[in-house]
C-alpha cells in the first residue's frame, strides 16, 4: 500500500512538472543560427542552416559552398529587365576572373518561392548559358527573407506576384563571410573583381 501511494505521489509530482518547457520548444530554433558550427566562422552567412533546392533538384545547405569564394545575386526568373542584366553583370565578372581562377562559386538565389522551382531555374540557367560554376537556388519564403536580410537586399512582392528589389552583387569569402557588396545594374565591376581576386 505504501509503495502504491509513493508511486502515486511521484506520478502526480512528475505530472505537475515543467511540461511548459516542452511546449516552449515547439517551434524549431535553428541550433546553429547563432553560434559557431564546427569550422564555420561566426561571421559567416553559412550559419543559416536552412535547406535550398538547386536547379538540378538537389537539396543543399549554404555551407556546401565553403572552400571557395562565392559571388551572390538575388533574382527572379520572371523579371523583365533588371535580373537578366544583373546576371549578365556577374557573368562579365566571371569572364574577367576565369583566367585567374575557376575556383569561384556563382550563386543566384530566387525571391520567387512560388514560381521559381528547380525546373524553372534550370530553364533560366540554360537560357543564360550559365556554366557548372553556377548554382541557382530555390528556398521557402521565410528562408529567402532571412537570407535577404543577411545580404542587405531589399525586396517586396507585388500584387501580380512579381518583385521589386534592390540589385546587389555580394562577395563572400571561402568561409561565407560577407566581405564586399556593389549595388546597381551595369555598375563598374572593377572593385568587385578586385575584391574577389583578393580572396583567391
Amino acid at each position, binding site marked *: 500500500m505504501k509503495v502504491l501511494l509513493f508511486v502515486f505521489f511521484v506520478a502526480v509530482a512528475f505530472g505537475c512538472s515543467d511540461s511548459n518547457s516542452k511546449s516552449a*520548444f515547439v517551434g524549431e530554433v535553428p541550433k546553429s*543560427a*547563432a553560434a559557431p558550427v564546427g569550422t564555420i566562422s*561566426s561571421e559567416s552567412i553559412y550559419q543559416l542552416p536552412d535547406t535550398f533546392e538547386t536547379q538540378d533538384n538537389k537539396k543543399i545547405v549554404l555551407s556546401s559552398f565553403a572552400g571557395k569564394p562565392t559571388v551572390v545575386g538575388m533574382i527572379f526568373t520572371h523579371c523583365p*529587365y533588371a535580373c537578366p*542584366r544583373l546576371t549578365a553583370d556577374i557573368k562579365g565578372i566571371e569572364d574577367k576572373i576565369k583566367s585567374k581562377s575557376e575556383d569561384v562559386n556563382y550563386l543566384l538565389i530566387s525571391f520567387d518561392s512560388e514560381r521559381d522551382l528547380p525546373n524553372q531555374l534550370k530553364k533560366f540557367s540554360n537560357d543564360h548559358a550559365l556554366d557548372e560554376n553556377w548554382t541557382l537556388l530555390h528556398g521557402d519564403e*521565410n528562408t529567402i527573407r532571412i537570407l535577404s536580410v543577411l545580404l542587405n537586399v531589399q525586396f517586396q512582392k507585388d500584387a501580380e506576384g512579381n518583385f*521589386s528589389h534592390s540589385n546587389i552583387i555580394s562577395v563572400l569569402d571561402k568561409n561565407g563571410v560577407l566581405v564586399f557588396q556593389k549595388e*546597381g545594374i551595369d555598375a563598374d565591376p572593377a572593385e568587385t573583381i578586385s575584391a574577389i581576386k583578393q580572396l583567391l
Partner: protein
Amino acid sequence: MKYFLSILIATVFFCAANAQKKAVLSEKKMVTVSSGNYKPFFVTKNNRPIYVAAFKMDESAVTNAEFLQFVKANPQWRRSKVNRIFADTNYLRHWKSDVEIGESNKKIYNSPVVNVSWFAAEAYCKWKNKKLPTIAQWELAANGAPKNFKYKSLTDFILDWYTKPNPRILPNVKSTYQNQYGLYDMNGLIWEWTFNFNSFIASRDSRDKSEADFKNFCAGGAINVVDKTDYATYLRFGYRASLKGNYCISSLGFRCVKDLK
C-alpha cells in the same frame, strides 16, 4: 505515516512551485485582427490595396520577462554568446547579465523588450510557434481605431510620441491606448519589427520621390508616396528603411502573430 506525510507535503510543494512557474510562463493573450484591405504608403502605378486575411496578434509587445524565458531556454541567444551577424553589440545591453534583467530594472520586467535584433525577434516568434507580422498585417492592426482616446486623431498621437524623447524608464505594456481589435500600444511605446521590413526600394534619400531608378525596379514604374502630409507614417517607413537585421535599438521591440487556423 510520517513517511507518507512527508511525501504528500513534498509533492504538494513541488506542484505548487511548478504551478507558479507555469503562471509566469502562461501564454500571452492573442487577439484576432479581422481581415481588411491595407492601402500601402508607397504606391506604384499598378498598386492596389493589399488584402490581409484575418490573423491573431499578441495583444501587447513581447516583454523583458517573456524574452528572458527565451534566452534561458536558448543559450545561443544570450548576450555573451550571440553571433554578431545576428545581433550587434547593443543586444540586450540594458539587462544586468545574460540571464538576468536585474533587480534594479524591476520596473521594466513588463515593459517591451528592446535592444533586440530582427533575427532575435524572428527566433523568439518561431520558438513560440508564431511569426513576425508582415508590414501589411502590422499597419492594418495599427490603424485600428483607438478606444477611449483623448487625442484629436491617431496621427496627432503618433506625431506627439515621435517628437518626444525616449523616457528613461520604458513604461509597461498596456500602459497606452487599446484599439478596436483589443491590441495595446500599437503606437506610443516602441517601434516594432516587421517580417519584411527590408521591403523598400525607394531611394533612402526621401526627396528622390519622383522616379526610382528604373534599374532598381523590376515591377516597373515610379514609386511614390500616397499622402505626403501623413508625417507620422512617413517617419515610420523612413525608420524601417534605415534598419539592418542585426541592429539592436533602445526604442525598437516587437510582437508576434499567428495564422488563424
